[in-house]
């Protein structure tokens, strides 16, 4: 057992009231769906508890993280930097099932797999992320995403977009389509635009980026615009939602991208569709018809189905953004709540954090950093002012924030997958 692993177990043991679990006699079965930042965190924390049996269901053998996938697009690092296997989770005592989950029965807390297997848990933790609303944009589908990638689920989609950028001739037009909120990673599209601009400036400086945005305002907007003006003058043009920026239709054959106002022909088009909670959750009614799954703010237990916790991007918890940092914090709170419940205690809430770094160039980073508090109804932002890096910050500050971003990514991924 390595030092990190021991530390992880010690973290958990500190908060565990074991006697009631021991009295229970048989190990309680925890089923976790999804090995991303929410699911892997909760699985790894609970797998260290002898009184629990933890099963983790994941479709993919390799997890490709969305954080740092924009760096792949910008040529900052290779795909390997964002690829992680699940071997360490297995070694930690998690029972891994590599399968596509096809259905959830909230009443019986059971989950069906593509091969017909059905698993039932005492507790379920669901962290399957998002699904795309393909029908919202005419001409867009999982099939056309091979020509017009979203790259909003990292992996093959990231590779497709990267390959298209590399193959594009200098002077080409890259169109990035951004949906109306809520979507996974609010500052993510704008970091992506920045790092694509970094790649183009370095390799294809006559190229342009057209941003067709359903939003008017966006996360860390003044900081992004400051960086674009200084790093990539004249390269990025953005059409906001109020000027009919939202993408309405895509023709993958001709690469014609249409808004309500205009049509453009792209050399490369990255159209990110509108999003909702993963379809397996909405099909099971866990979204209560809202598109996102309402949960209580302490242990992130479903408002619809007791004993089922929903973490990360799919959850409707209040003010926290759909980010890896948030999912990880929610998973830690969820693990504490599960252990408290099994020990016969009422879970207690504690403040949570979210820090989202964005890179606009290899050594130019900035951040939004917030404290959240579980209130009676929802998770609430504690302070609504002064949340981001200041405008006009020094080059040293931006370099330090870029360094901290890389450090955070390496630390959190080693905790989950290392």
């Amino acid at each position, binding site marked *: 057992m390595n030092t990190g692993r021991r530390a992880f177990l010690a973290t958990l043991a500190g908060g565990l009231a074991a006697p009631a679990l021991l009295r229970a006699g048989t190990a309680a079965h925890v089923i976790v769906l999804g090995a991303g930042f929410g699911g892997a965190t909760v699985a790894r924390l609970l797998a260290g508890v002898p009184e629990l049996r933890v099963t983790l269901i994941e479709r993919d053998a390799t997890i490709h993280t969305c954080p740092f996938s924009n760096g792949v697009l910008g040529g900052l690092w290779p795909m390997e930097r964002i690829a992680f296997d699940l071997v360490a989770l297995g070694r930690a005592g998690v029972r891994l099932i590599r399968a596509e989950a096809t259905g959830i029965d909230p009443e019986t807390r059971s989950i069906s797999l593509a091969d017909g297997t059905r698993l039932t848990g005492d507790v379920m933790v669901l962290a399957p992320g998002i699904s795309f609303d393909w029908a919202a944009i005419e001409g867009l589908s999982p099939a056309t995403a091979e020509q017009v990638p979203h790259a909003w689920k990292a992996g093959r989609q990231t590779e497709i977009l990267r390959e298209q950028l590399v193959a594009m001739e200098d002077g080409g037009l890259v169109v990035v389509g951004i949906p109306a909120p809520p979507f996974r990673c609010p500052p993510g599209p704008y970091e992506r635009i920045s790092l694509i601009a970094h790649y183009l400036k370095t390799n294809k400086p006559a190229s342009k980026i057209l941003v067709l945005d359903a939003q008017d305002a966006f996360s860390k907007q003044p900081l992004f615009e400051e960086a674009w003006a200084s790093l990539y003058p004249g390269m990025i043009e953005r059409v906001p939602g109020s000027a009919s920026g939202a993408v309405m239709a895509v023709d993958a054959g001709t690469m014609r991208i249409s808004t309500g106002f205009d049509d453009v022909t792209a050399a490369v088009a990255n159209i990110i569709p509108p999003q909702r909670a993963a379809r397996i959750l909405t099909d099971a009614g866990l979204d209560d018809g809202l598109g996102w799954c309402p949960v209580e703010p302490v242990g992130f237990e479903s408002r619809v189905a007791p004993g089922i916790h929903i973490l990360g991007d799919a959850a409707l918890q209040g003010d926290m953004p759909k980010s890896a940092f948030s999912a990880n914090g929610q998973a830690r709170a969820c693990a504490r709540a599960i252990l408290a419940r099994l020990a016969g205690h009422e879970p207690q809430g504690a403040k949570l954090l979210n820090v989202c770094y964005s890179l606009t160039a290899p050594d130019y980073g900035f951040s939004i950093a917030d404290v959240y508090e579980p209130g009676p109804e929802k998770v609430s932002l504690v302070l609504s002012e002064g949340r981001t890096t200041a405008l006009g910050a020094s080059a040293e500050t931006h370099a330090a924030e870029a360094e901290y971003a890389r450090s955070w990514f390496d*630390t959190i991924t080693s905790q989950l997958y290392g």
Partner: protein
Amino acid sequence: MIKPGKPSIFIVMLLSLPCGMVLAGPVQPPLPDGKALAEACFSCHGEGGRGGGRIPALAGQDMTGLQQKMLALRSPSPGSTIMPRLMRGYDTDEIAALADYFAGVSP
């Protein structure tokens, strides 16, 4: 009246209290759960606050020193980045509980 040289029952009780609790008076609630608060810090500062890459370790440091550092971090200073934005979201009891937790973790 406490006689010098002999620990009072008050001190004995204080020393025997579990981590995170301070007996400041009969109506004062215990400090918040330091470990639960501290877990929010681990993805940057490492598991248990044992350090992560370029982010400093907190584990095993002197409690009073940590507490003073965290209180000072509520105001920005040259070279500071995200910490002032985060620390201003915690009250003095929460900062004491965080310092108490990290001080008790073996580095």
